């Protein structure tokens, strides 16, 4: 007898990502939809930039609770998030938009959970990285410019790598799933 498959939220979401590949047979959006996409690119970049500012602030806090190798690697992650900020800011200026500065540090700190241990801090970082991947993947179909899509995937891939690092530092499998959707 074949045992029934156990469906968890994770397997259903991964199946949806895989099904996303199988169900693709449609054409490009109509011209009016494309215009709305082009006008939306700066807004999406601005939202992504806002989240990168959050990641920078978060890694400063996460790093304070780490020691040794974990501290070094979290510092490196923080530096790379700053590079994401710089790149997104550059892309926004290319589109004629002035990128927003980060909020005051205290505002970020008030929004973060209370973190008491290194493991809790790394868990928090992993949650944020999942959200970052989810954000960039969510924007992809609506980005009108193909070069912007490539930039979004480059940053999403970097965030997925950060996720792998913080999971590894926390004693977890670094690459848990074949489709990194940010929806655990």
């Amino acid at each position, binding site marked *: 007898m074949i045992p029934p498959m156990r469906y968890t939220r994770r397997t259903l979401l991964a199946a949806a990502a895989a099904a996303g590949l199988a169900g*693709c047979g449609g054409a490009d959006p109509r011209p009016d939809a494309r215009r709305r996409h082009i006008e939306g690119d700066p807004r999406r970049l601005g939202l992504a930039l806002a989240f990168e500012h959050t990641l920078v602030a978060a890694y400063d806090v996460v790093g304070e609770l780490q020691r040794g190798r974990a501290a070094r690697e979290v510092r490196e992650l923080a530096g790379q998030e700053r590079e994401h900020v710089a790149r997104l800011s550059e892309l926004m200026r290319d589109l004629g938009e002035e990128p927003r500065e980060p909020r005051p540090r205290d505002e970020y700190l008030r929004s973060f959970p209370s973190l008491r241990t290194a493991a809790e801090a790394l868990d928090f970082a992993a949650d944020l990285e999942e959200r970052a*991947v989810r954000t960039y993947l969510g924007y992809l179909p609506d980005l009108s410019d193909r070069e912007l899509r490539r930039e979004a995937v480059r940053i999403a*891939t970097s965030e997925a790598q950060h996720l792998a690092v913080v999971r590894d530092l926390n004693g977890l499998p670094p690459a848990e799933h074949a489709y990194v959707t940010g929806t655990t």
Partner: protein
Amino acid sequence: MSDATVIVALLELERRSEALWRELPGFDRIAEQEATHARGLERALAGMGRRAPAGAPESPRDASLETALALEDELVRAYSAAMRDISNPRLLAPLASICANHGQHLVILRRELGRNPITRAFEPVE
């Protein structure tokens, strides 16, 4: 370049990568992830009314972590380039989620090789 052409090229890389990982002891999880990617790409081709190319890749002559590192790097570049080449927007997020996984494989490999796992903020692209 058609979407099908892009997908076929990615599929060939995934099959090569799966064959390589299966030669490396202790990396079954990653080999299975490559196999999952390949199945997804095959389904994408079926959705376009195309049949995936038949045949399994040859066993790699040099099955080493360095070879795996080079191939995973090639995969990230290929998926990144696909973001420019793919026309159907509904393919983008699934392909990007696979690219992200290959980025994670690079982290694992660099650690195995005793290197900095996160050498740069952006992996090189075509």
